[in-house]
């Protein structure tokens, strides 16, 4: 495996809570992402997935830890010096309607990264935008429209064309399909899967949809309350989830085969407030296999098998399986 495109070490992001106190949105997260690899980032709303994505791209400054992109520590580089790097790291946002400037045509929007990062002439940019448009299956007639004149799926295609325009080494996709209709979603996912093969870009794919995850991700990182609770290859996570939270999450995913027996683990209890977190495992309040020690000690992320790591105290004594 080649040198990682992205290495994140001990990244934390804290926000001041409105009423005093501190919200730990992301806590001590480390991972690497190799060229051509897609890392799926799953977790429920508020688990810090999007904040992590934004920290990686330096759209917000992390509170702690380091982000090393293509061998360069970008954690404390001033924004002006980050700008040339942005040709190599792009983002696709959740809501394409909000992410597109309503006063620019699709063509202007697709040409913008080319204008900022390449020395192409006006005519060459035009040709390249047309080519990119066709690549994401937007006919060139569509390119002269404004975002308000495009459908949600077409808007997201514009966003994707923008993101791949400069052939970036890393693309962060923040729930790129969750605001789209199901029928449109399939088309966008197909396109993304094709682009993944074609461009060789590393992708950080943020989602809460397990079907999408299964289709796109090579490796999966599960987050709960700002912490990574499990990290493994996609196959491992779907077949042998170790952390009780991952098990519950995977049981919520309906397999396409109706003959497969379902093991449903419905979680009870509340997520603790992210303000001033309790000392132990964040999941202890909802965990069916929690023991008293879980509420006192933070479980470290430990390797169970090569490439498979989970943060659960019960893994050691084998009590981490939720009985069905």
């Amino acid at each position, binding site marked *: 495996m080649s040198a990682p495109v992205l290495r994140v070490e001990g990244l934390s992001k804290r926000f001041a809570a409105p009423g005093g106190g501190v919200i730990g949105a992301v806590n001590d997260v480390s991972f690497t992402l190799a060229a051509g690899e897609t890392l799926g980032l799953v977790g429920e709303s508020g688990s810090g997935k999007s904040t992590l994505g934004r920290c990686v791209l330096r*759209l917000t400054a992390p509170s702690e830890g380091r982000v090393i992109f293509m061998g360069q520590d970008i954690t404390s580089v001033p924004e002006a010096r980050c*700008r040339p790097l942005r040709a190599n790291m792009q983002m696709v946002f959740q809501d394409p309607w909000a*992410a597109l*400037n*309503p006063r620019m045509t699709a063509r202007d929007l697709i040409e913008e990264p080319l204008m*900022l990062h390449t020395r192409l002439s006006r005519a060459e940019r035009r040709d390249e935008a047309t080519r990119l448009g066709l690549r994401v299956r937007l006919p060139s007639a569509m390119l002269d429209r404004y975002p308000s004149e495009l459908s949600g799926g077409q808007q997201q295609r514009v966003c994707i064309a923008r993101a791949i325009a400069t052939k970036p080494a890393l693309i962060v996709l923040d729930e790129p399909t969750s605001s789209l209709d199901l029928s449109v979603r399939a088309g966008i996912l197909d396109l993304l899967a094709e682009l993944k093969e074609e461009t060789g870009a590393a992708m950080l794919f943020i989602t809460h949809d397990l079907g999408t995850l299964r289709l796109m991700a090579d490796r999966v990182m599960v987050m709960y309350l700002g912490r990574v609770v499990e990290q493994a290859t996609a196959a491992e996570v779907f077949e042998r989830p170790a952390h009780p939270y991952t098990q519950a999450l995977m049981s919520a995913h309906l397999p396409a085969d109706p003959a497969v027996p379902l093991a449903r683990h419905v979680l009870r209890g509340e997520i603790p407030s992210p303000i001033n977190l309790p000392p132990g495992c964040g999941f202890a309040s909802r965990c069916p296999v929690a023991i008293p020690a879980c509420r006192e000690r933070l479980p470290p992320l430990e390797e169970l098998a090569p490439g498979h790591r989970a943060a659960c105290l019960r893994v050691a004594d084998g009590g981490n399986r939720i009985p069905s």
Partner: protein
Amino acid sequence: MSDAALPAPATPAWTARAAGRLAGISRRSPTLAIGAAIILGFALLAVLAPLISPESPVASNPARVLQAPSAANWFGTDGNGMDVLSRVIHGSLYAFGIAIPVVIVGLLIGVPVGLWTGWTGGWPDEIVMRGSDALRVFPSIILALAVVAAAGPSLLNVVLVLGLLDAPVYARVVRAEVLSLRNGTFVEAAVAAGNPTRRILFRHILPNALRGATAQTAVRAAWAVRISATLAFLGVGIQPPTPEWGAMIRQGAEYMVTGEWWVAVFPGCALILLVLGLNMLGDGLADLLDPRRKAATR
């Protein structure tokens, strides 16, 4: 089959299309249409003033001082024997000549200030906004009076002072829109794409932050017409015998008590009508440009 039998709709000429659009807008907002029609009327008067006014606006004739409206002088004559109709027509030239530059000066100062303070926030924002509060709290007519009286009653001074007084209004609406756009997703997307700050401000934020300011221009033009006429009426603005409506009303006011009403009433009506038209246009524009207001009136 039945579809094929229908005649293909002919592509309308651009004039027909434009007319169709105008009809559509006037149906949706009659206020806008009436306001625009009034302003268009005055604009025509202003442009064609030398051609259509029966006499020179400053041609005095001692032989026909203070004559009532008649077939020869439709609006009568004033104390200098000048034709009131010609003076009212030429007055529209001065009304536009003040209102348009005032709005331009106000926009040129207010929009960049609003953009800058909205984007940076912090102490520059505090200082500029408190300063503009101070300007707004102070009655603008008194401030304008003082400054014009001190600087001298020229057209240029009136325009500069009114423009400066007007700037906080634009700064405020632009700032408010910049504040709401600043943390928006497409601005974040623009940062993620690698846009330099200057381009984010002028290409991404500014075009989306001008809605409120645009809607304000007509209303502020009405204000400029009103205040400049007031200044002239009080004797510190444009001086007679320049055919400015405020100055004309001032001259005519002396004759009201003795019954020669036409000297003041005709320029007064012109002033009211233009200010009304501008306000209606401003209201209509606000409806048209603000989707939320439009939805509420539907």
